[in-house]
Every structure is written in structure tokens, then in C-alpha cells.
């Protein structure tokens, strides 16, 4: 009996397995293969064309001695932390407010979600104009009478990254709000009723009951926000092209510029390997806790 069942294990769900072969191959060849290839060539001195001429860790030494790369990393950290915190907080607050059974909920939802329909390029261009001191917010406020008003984040090296953050939040919080709203709607009405009977204030209910119950939604949201942070590129290109100077450079832009403009593949590969490494540092412990931990428990 058991003899005849063994091969069946392999052929169980055969259709599903055959159907997933293309994706498995794609994952292996394109993702894993491409990654391995990139890491391998990051140890070479490839210029315009990939060449297997190994130079050890030279590309990495140069990378970490480059001011522009260090500025990029710093920017990514500032942008990442703030974008994560503000997207979640604003998104959740908007969702909670919309959840108060207000009138015209659909209208508000549409308004908040609309920016998400725009690409980062369009968002960047719009905010480039809005934050331009000669045409945007500054000139409007000055025209109203406050002539000493000054607001030009995109032309000030020390705060330019916040100018980009504003645009990113404007574009992205709508989606976070929708995800949160869906999460809130998934909470059973009875929970609310029970909390009210026990006389727990609304804010406490949100903080200690609802949010912990929304854990899966928060995790999905986190993944979506985090992946958006690491790959941020087009917004910067459209809004400031890394300027003023190199004050708003980001790692993804460094990779692209050095691979294609500077014709130095090795340096670009080294930078992208570092990006991969930083993502792994965040993802691996989290995945271990999230999936590994559950099995044991």
C-alpha cells in the first residue's frame, strides 16, 4: 500500500506544480541567478562591459569612501524612518476619522486616494513647482502680505530631503489609509459594543484592542511601505535630480548613475549589493520571527 502511495506524493496536485514551473524558473534564473551574477561581478573592475577581472573588495572600499554614497545612505535612513512613521500615523488617523460613520465618506476616500493614481514622476514634478520659491507656496504667501516668509526646501541642502518626504507622503498615505480602513472594517462590531459597555474610552479601545487585532494589516502595510522606501528613485529624479549639489541623493540613484552614466558597472554592482544586504538585514530577522517562530509555537 505504502509503496504505491509514495510516487503519488510527487504527482499530487500535478497541475498546480506544472503551472508553477515557469514562475519557479523565473525566480531561480532571474531573481536568484541575477542576484548571484551581480554580487560576483561586484568584485571585478568591470567598466562599460562586464569582465571577470577580480579586484577583491576594491569597489567596496571606494564605495564607502565616497561622500555621495554616505549622503545617500543618510538620506535613505531619514526618509525611511520618517516616511514609515508618518505614513502609518497619518494613514491610520485618516482611516479612524473616516470610520466614524461620517457623511460623504466615499467622497473623502476618493480625494485622499487620488494622489496614489499619479506616478512618482508626476508627483515629483507637481511638488517641484509647489515648492519652488518663485512660483509655489512661498510666492503665494508672500503675495498675501507676509513678505519675509521663506519656504524653499528644495533649494536648501539641509532640509531638501523633507521636501521629498512631503511629496512622498502626499502621494502614498491615501493607500495606507485605505488598507487601514479595510482593517478597521474587518473588526467585529461586537468588540466595539463590548468595549463601550465596559466604559473604555474610544482612544484606549483603538490603542489597546483594535490596533493589536489589526496586526496582519499592519504587517502588509509595513512591507508595502518598506519596499517603497528602499527603491525610491523616480521621485528624487523628478523633484530635485539629487540636488542641490548631492544633498538629496539616494542609493538607487547612485547605482543607476554609476552603472550607466559613469560606465562603471563594478561600482554600480557593489552599491546594489550593499542595498541588497541592507534589505536582508531588515528582512531576515523579521521573517525568522514571523514565520520561524510561529511553527515552534
Amino acid at each position, binding site marked *: 500500500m505504502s509503496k504505491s502511495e509514495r510516487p503519488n506524493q510527487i504527482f499530487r496536485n500535478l497541475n498546480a506544480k506544472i503551472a508553477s514551473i515557469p514562475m519557479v524558473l523565473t525566480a531561480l534564473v532571474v531573481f536568484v541567478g541575477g542576484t548571484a551574477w551581480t554580487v560576483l561581478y561586484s568584485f571585478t573592475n568591470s567598466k562599460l*562591459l562586464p569582465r571577470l577581472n577580480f579586484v577583491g573588495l576594491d569597489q567596496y572600499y571606494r564605495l564607502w569612501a565616497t561622500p555621495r554614497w554616505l549622503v545617500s545612505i543618510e538620506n535613505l535612513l531619514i526618509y525611511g524612518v520618517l516616511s514609515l512613521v508618518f505614513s502609518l500615523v497619518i494613514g491610520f488617523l485618516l482611516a479612524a476619522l473616516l470610520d466614524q460613520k461620517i457623511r460623504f465618506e466615499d467622497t473623502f476616500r476618493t480625494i485622499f486616494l487620488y494622489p496614489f493614481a499619479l506616478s512618482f514622476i508626476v508627483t515629483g514634478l507637481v511638488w517641484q513647482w509647489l515648492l519652488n520659491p518663485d512660483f509655489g507656496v512661498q510666492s503665494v504667501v508672500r503675495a498675501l502680505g507676509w513678505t519675509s516668509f521663506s519656504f524653499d526646501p528644495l533649494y536648501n*541642502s539641509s532640509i531638501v530631503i523633507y521636501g521629498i518626504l512631503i511629496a512622498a507622503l502626499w502621494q502614498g498615505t491615501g493607500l495606507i489609509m485605505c488598507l487601514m480602513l479595510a482593517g478597521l472594517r474587518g473588526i467585529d462590531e461586537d468588540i466595539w459594543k463590548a468595549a463601550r459597555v465596559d466604559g473604555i474610552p474610544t482612544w484606549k479601545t483603538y490603542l489597546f484592542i483594535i490596533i493589536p487585532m489589526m496586526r496582519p494589516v499592519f504587517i502588509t502595510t509595513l512591507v508595502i511601505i518598506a519596499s517603497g522606501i528602499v527603491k525610491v528613485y523616480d521621485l528624487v529624479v523628478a523633484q530635485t535630480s539629487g540636488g*542641490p*549639489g548631492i544633498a538629496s541623493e539616494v542609493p538607487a540613484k547612485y547605482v543607476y*548613475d554609476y552603472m550607466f552614466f559613469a*560606465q*562603471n558597472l563594478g561600482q554600480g554592482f557593489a552599491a546594489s549589493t550593499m542595498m541588497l544586504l541592507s534589505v536582508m538585514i531588515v528582512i531576515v530577522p523579521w521573517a525568522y520571527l514571523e514565520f520561524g517562530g510561529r511553527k515552534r509555537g
Partner: protein
Amino acid sequence: MRYKVLTAAFAATVALNVAGPAAATDLEVTHWWTSGGEAAAVAELAKAFDATGNHWVDGAIAGSGGTARPIMISRITGGDPMGATQFNHGRQAEELVQAGLMRDLTDVATKGKWTEVVRPKSLLDSCTIGGKIYCVPVNIHSWQWLWLSNEAFQKAGVPLPKDWNEFVAAAPALEKAGIVPLAVGGQAWQSSGAFDVLLAAVGGTDTFLKVYKDKDAKFAAGPEVGKVFKAADDARKMAKNTNVQDWNQATNMVITGKAGGQIMGDWAQGEFQVAGKVAGKDYTCLPGLGLNEVIATGGDAFYFPLLKDADKSKAQEVLAETLLDPKTQVAFNLKKGSLPVRGDVDLNSANDCMKKGLAILAKGAVIPWTDQLLSQDSQKQKEDLFSEFFAKPEMTVEEAQKRFADIIASAD
């Protein structure tokens, strides 16, 4: 009946085929000349090539060389080469040539006696790799120009400067009149290019060559280059209120009198022409910033990828010859605002500034440009440094010079 009609139709097709031009070969040419004046100039090249019985398929890529070059290179390396493509002559296509992807034009060059007609000689040198010629230079663009707005200086009540030093001295008066003394756009290549111009003008030709050609890092850290960094410091102070990105927006500030001047290549002249401004009356040009009247011989060239198709290869030769034809050279360069690569053509209709350029060229006061001397990698590092230097007032001159010397030390 039907059979007869079919035969007749068939015969007609055959006849048409025979009647058509026998040697009409389509050749795709990629370039990044998309602004008004540039497109008009390219049309001249296309017209000349079509007149040879072939057909120019225009493959313009918008968004300047920085955007276009990666596309061109990936088409060539990816096995989908075009018939011919623009690059700046120099080292941009060096590795493509070394990888054997580009076509050797030595035969065509010998037949057309290019070594005799192309002037200055350095142009052909940068097309030559390992004794073989791989590209056709079509024009000379020089960076060494200071464009001044006559209107701005009138408004500020100071006489028009004759060189960089007078310009720096006039800056406070311009600022008082609410004029930005020097317009430098936010794009990285602009500040980096402005420094290179200062290096050749303030430092002198020898200094320029010692740094970029000999790559003498010790010299680059020394007092001679230090003087140039002081000048660059003046420049960034004068430019701090520019607040525009693109070079033509910065040029527009000079055209409208909002800025006193701009250090920019001769392509800026096209903008002045489009705006209907007259050289000498509305604007003034100072080659070599008025200090060291040299011009660099950067510019554009056409490269020909190696093709398997024999007809197309033949057409490539025809195109290469056409590009250097005296008539094409004149028609193209007048529209482009650049200088022709042949010394034996007549350019009477050129304006004042172009004539100044031609005179310097005739004197032989030329230097090779950074495109020819440095790899793209070193150029990019330089751009990063100078865009930071110009945007960050708290970065000291000493710090910038030290980093510059480091780049030169590792330059290739």
C-alpha cells in the same frame, strides 16, 4: 481573364521594383539632437545623405546625452546595432571599440585624406584607437565662453567687464541691483564644466593639461590649482541665488537680464539667436573668460557599429563621406552654432562670437577637452564633487581641493 490580370499585376510589381533606386538602403542614425536649432541641423545631414540615393532613418533620443548614451550602448552591446550613432568624440565609446563592436573606418579615411583636411588634428586623434580610425568628427563645440548680458551691466551701472577678474569685481554692484551675478544651473555637469573652464582660464593651459592629461595628483593639490579653487569659490558665491536647474533656463536668465553672466559652451549661442538677441549689442561673449583665449576641441562625432549586412555597410561608408563633405559641414554647423572640423570651408555668414572662435582655432590655440582626457567614471566623480561644492557653502575650498586631488590620483 483572371489569370491575365494577375500576370499583369505581377509584371507591374516587377517593373516597379526594377524602376526603383537600386542602391536605396535605409540606415538608422541615433543622436540626441532634439532642441529646435539642433533638429534643424540634423535635417541638413539627413538631406545630404538622402541625396546620395540612400535613406536616413532618424532615431532621435530625447533628453540629452546622459539619457541617450545608455540606450545607444545597450542597443550596440545587446545585438541590435543602429547604422550609425552620435557620441561626443573622446572616450565615451572607447570600450565598445575595444570589444570589437565598432567598425574600422581607416580605409574610408585614407581615401578621403581625412588626416589632411580635419583640423585641429587632435579631433582625429581622439577617433583613433590602436592606429585605426573609428569615428567621424562633425563639429567642434567649446566650453570656454563667458556670456554676458549687456542690459544687466547697464542696469547695475558698471562697465562691461573684459575678463573674469573684472567680472568678479563687478559682482557686488550687480547684486545691489537685484541681479544674480553668475547663473549656474543645478545640473551637475554645469558646475563641473564651469570649474574646468576656470582651470583652463585662470590656471592656464599648462595647468589644465598637467591636471587632466598627466593626472598629476600632487600638482592638483598644490598652490597653482589652489588659485583656481579660489576662483571657483568666487563663482559659487556669485551663483548662489540661481535657483534653476537646466542650462537653458540659466542662459535665459542672462538673456532676460536677470543674471549678469554664465559660463557655458557655445551651444548657448543658439538660445540667444532664438531669442532674437544680437552678439555685441545685447550680449557679449568672452572666449577663455577673457584671460586665456583658448578653446577646447570637444564636440560630436559619428560612430559606426559593425554590421553584417553588406548593403548597410556600404551605406555606412557613404554616410561617413557625406558627413565630412565641405557643403554638409557648412550647412550643418551654421544651424548648429558650432565650428566645422575642416579648415578649408567658407563661413562668411557666421556671427561675431563664432568668428572669434574661428580666429582662435586658426591661431591653433586649442586644448583637448575632458571628454577626451578622462574616463566617464572620473568625469562622474568630478561632477559629484563640484555639484556639492557649488550647492554647499560650508564646504571649504581646502576640503574640495583635497577631494579633487584624490579623484585625479585615481583617475583613468
